[in-house]
């Protein structure tokens, strides 16, 4: 029982990080219809910014907020400077350009911060004795903190999308850009904000992951792939789906490695692909993706 609780919490915590990253992917996909290949790398860059800032003496939480702002600006810039001009001329080429951004950011990180792994302090207490006991199981506070962050981010996003004017505009733009323009929404501004938001969330995910995973230039490679699977699994246009997809992957990882002897951590990707395949065969638009109800 105690082991089960531990694995459950670990699965939910890792799943929360995938969920955050998948959310970022979905926010961009809904508005622009693009899978942002550079999403993970912008997160990695942000995590290095956190590292630099904490080394200069800033508190970890403040460093993360500032790095999220950096992620916002970079991601917004990618939309404005790379994606939009190319999309106008050749929509199919955007995906290639985003892979280019992925490589560029990756190189940039190596140039500025080198290739050696470094540690990143945890924003939550993470000493040997920083745990609470739940149903007899020792659960690390840092792990619970990650789950808490996901909950807070979800709450803030929900409030933004449903209770603010800019959130309404973001939903409108995701649904119909031409009509958004006609009601007076500046579509370009909304797209920039959406991408920026995704960039900030990606940095947050990376900053939460780095303390346990170790900060290297390839920090977000695996998580990005898993988050892509999570987003497709949940339905690329569904924030709820992204979160559910992320948690499913985190839990699968934790329980598979823990309980199924012959399946090691290496088998996570193949197993996830099988799950993905089965889900898509049954529901082509993913678990929560919209099969649009539309009368013409």
């Amino acid at each position, binding site marked *: 029982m105690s082991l089960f609780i531990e694995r459950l919490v670990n699965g939910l915590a890792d799943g929360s990080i995938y969920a955050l990253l998948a959310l970022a992917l979905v926010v961009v996909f809904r508005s622009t219809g693009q899978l942002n290949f550079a999403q993970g790398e912008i997160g990695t860059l942000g995590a290095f910014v956190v590292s630099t800032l904490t080394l200069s003496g800033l508190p970890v939480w403040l460093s993360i907020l500032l790095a999220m702002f950096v992620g916002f600006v970079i991601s917004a810039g990618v939309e404005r400077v790379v994606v939009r001009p190319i999309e106008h001329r050749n929509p199919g080429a955007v995906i290639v350009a985003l892979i280019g951004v992925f490589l560029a950011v990756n190189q940039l990180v190596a140039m500025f911060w080198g290739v050696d792994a470094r540690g990143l302090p945890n924003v939550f207490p993470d000493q040997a004795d920083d745990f609470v006991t739940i149903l007899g199981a020792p659960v690390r506070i840092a792990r619970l903190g990650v789950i808490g962050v996901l909950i807070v981010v979800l709450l803030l996003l929900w409030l933004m999308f449903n209770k603010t004017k800019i959130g309404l505009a973001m939903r409108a733009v995701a649904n119909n850009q031409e009509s958004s323009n006609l009601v007076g929404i500046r579509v370009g501004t909304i797209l920039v904000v959406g991408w920026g938001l995704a960039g900030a969330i990606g940095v947050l995910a990376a900053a939460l992951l780095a303390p346990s995973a170790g900060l290297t230039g390839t920090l977000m490679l695996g998580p990005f792939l898993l988050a892509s699977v999570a987003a497709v699994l949940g339905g690329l246009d569904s924030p709820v789906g992204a979160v559910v997809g992320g948690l499913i992957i985190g839990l699968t990882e934790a329980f598979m490695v823990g309980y199924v002897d012959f399946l090691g951590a290496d088998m996570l990707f193949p197993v996830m692909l099988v799950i993905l395949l089965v889900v898509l065969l049954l529901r082509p638009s993913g678990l929560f993706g919209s099969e649009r109800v539309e009368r*013409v």
Partner: protein
Amino acid sequence: MSGDALLAVTGLTAGYGPVEVLHGLDFTVGEGEIVVILGANGAGKTTTMRAVSGMIPRHGTVEFGGVDISGAKPDAIVRAGVSQVPQGRGTFTDLTVEDNLECGGYTVKGSIAEDLERWYGVFPRLAERRDQKAGSLSGGEQQMLAVARAMMSRPKLLLCDEPSLGLAPLITKELFKVLGNLRDEHGMSLLIVEQNAGMSLALADRAYVLETGSIVATGTGDELLADDTIKEAYLGVVN
């Protein structure tokens, strides 16, 4: 007329890429007037609407309320008081009816609660379906929603792109009654482009006929209704 017209368009040309679709249109819409532009498929009706609302590059002058809006962006034109009901309605199908209306009021500063109630009053069916996704409404209901959404920005001029498209005659009649009421009870000016000559000309104060990007005839609604060539081309009456 053009001196005190609400909308005065002169020498309007527009197109897509190298292709010019509109070859210098002149037309006006006066205060409290319903003007219809009649044209067959591909005549350039939608292009005209998109040029007026700033959705595509255009040349010539577009004056609204005496102000030159030829170079203005779509959101500035909405703020100035021009609102469009696009062809095919263009409702936000994934959003609820109420969200659609709130989007319509996006440019309004301050509360739009009263506007919501006002247009729910005009369109009670929308009020009943306010929490339903717009995509699940019938074609007629979506067209009503598109009109209500356009009115949420408190426009002085409403542009309607083929409002009768795909609607049963009875629904079209109901819709045109609503459009007439906008003029008669709310003091609105309307520019309607249509292929449905019979019903739209009966409603129009004045009308223009658009053929392959040029205006070829103009007159009052009744004059054009009585015109033999119009009858032949748009009403299928053979003399």
